[in-house]
């Protein structure tokens, strides 16, 4: 009689962790190099989001630097952002590492206000990993994949502080079954700008 493992192809315990780990390292090195090379101020993002889909929520942590200064005539700048997303429910955990190259339009007319709406768009590359522990049902499932998407972000600084801003942001993703996929509320912490200290 043939004995067959209960774990069919495509649902092995470690698959595809090696590819995922390699992709993660490459992404962090590339993005980190670029971010470290940029001379502008950095911001650390911490947020919670109401998200579409299975979980209904996400925790978000990110790091953003603006490459170069705002254009002279148009209130547009170019943030680069690396972002981690985490959600869990019913023994299923989802982690996404995202990088964005954005063009951000700062809506005119709010320059002297603490409320600063903006629109941003650009590509994002995502490495997604999910993990499920079936416990008493005898298996641990893991799966990862990479995706390239186009995004439109609409957000606003709701309150501006010397070191910390409160912000909100919604994300529209294309192509995706959930086009408008989350709205986040959190804080932006202004990190030290090393280039200005030299």
């Amino acid at each position, binding site marked *: 009689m043939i004995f067959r493992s209960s774990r069919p192809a*495509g649902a092995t315990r470690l698959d595809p962790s090696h590819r995922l780990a390699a992709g993660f390292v490459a992404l962090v090195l590339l993005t980190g190099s670029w971010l470290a090379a940029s001379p502008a101020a950095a911001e650390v993002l911490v947020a919670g989001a109401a998200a579409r889909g299975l979980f209904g929520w996400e925790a978000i942590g990110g790091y953003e630097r603006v490459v170069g200064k705002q254009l002279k005539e148009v209130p547009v700048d170019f943030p680069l952002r690396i972002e981690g997303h985490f959600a869990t429910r019913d023994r299923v955990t989802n982690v996404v590492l995202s990088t964005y190259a954005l063009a951000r339009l700062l809506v005119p007319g709010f320059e002297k206000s603490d409320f600063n709406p903006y629109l941003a768009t650009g590509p994002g590359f995502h490495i997604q990993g*999910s993990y499920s522990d079936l416990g*008493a*049902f005898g298996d641990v499932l893991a799966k990862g994949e990479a995706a*390239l998407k186009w995004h439109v972000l609409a957000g606003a600084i709701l309150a501006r502080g010397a070191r910390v801003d409160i912000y909100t942001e919604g994300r529209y993703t294309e192509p995706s079954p959930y086009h408008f996929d989350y709205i986040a509320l959190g804080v932006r912490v202004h990190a030290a700008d090393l280039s200005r200290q030299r």
Partner: protein
Amino acid sequence: MLPGVKNGAWRGTFFVGPNVLGRLQLLLPLLFLLVLPLLTACDEDVTLVDPAPIFSFDPENAWATTCGPPGGPGKIASQPAPTPASVPPPPGLAISACPNPAPPGTPEITIEFRLDVRVPSVNLAIVNSSGQIVQVLLMDEAAPMGSTIRASWLLEGITPGDYRAYFLAGSLETSGDIQVQ
């Protein structure tokens, strides 16, 4: 000097000087244009807020479809020959799921099994392709050796898609793909 590159600012960086940095800034808008065609090859099904699909229905990973008649006692042959495209269960276990795939309007999927070995208890659960347990059919249930046991998965309110049934009885462990159409 390029916008945003202050005099001496580049010295704080580890990898590039001002010229390279300037080129990076100029490349950013080009990156946007280069990425656009790549998006046409993207997988629309990948959501960034749902778990990656852990499996999809594969007939070779489905159990046999040799259940007994509905409403009557299940009749599984002592070791039913699996259908050509089905996963053989481990020795000591005969198991089947019917109907599979389940056509639209199917009220329930019946999972029948018989153990030819003694086991402390039996667990049976249905997992969706995101890895979420959607229904526990049996949890630490006693399963007398040699008797046929039937568990029904009611499909009312179940979203069509790919599922997997996980069966665990002592050291006997198997899973079978199920599709709800």
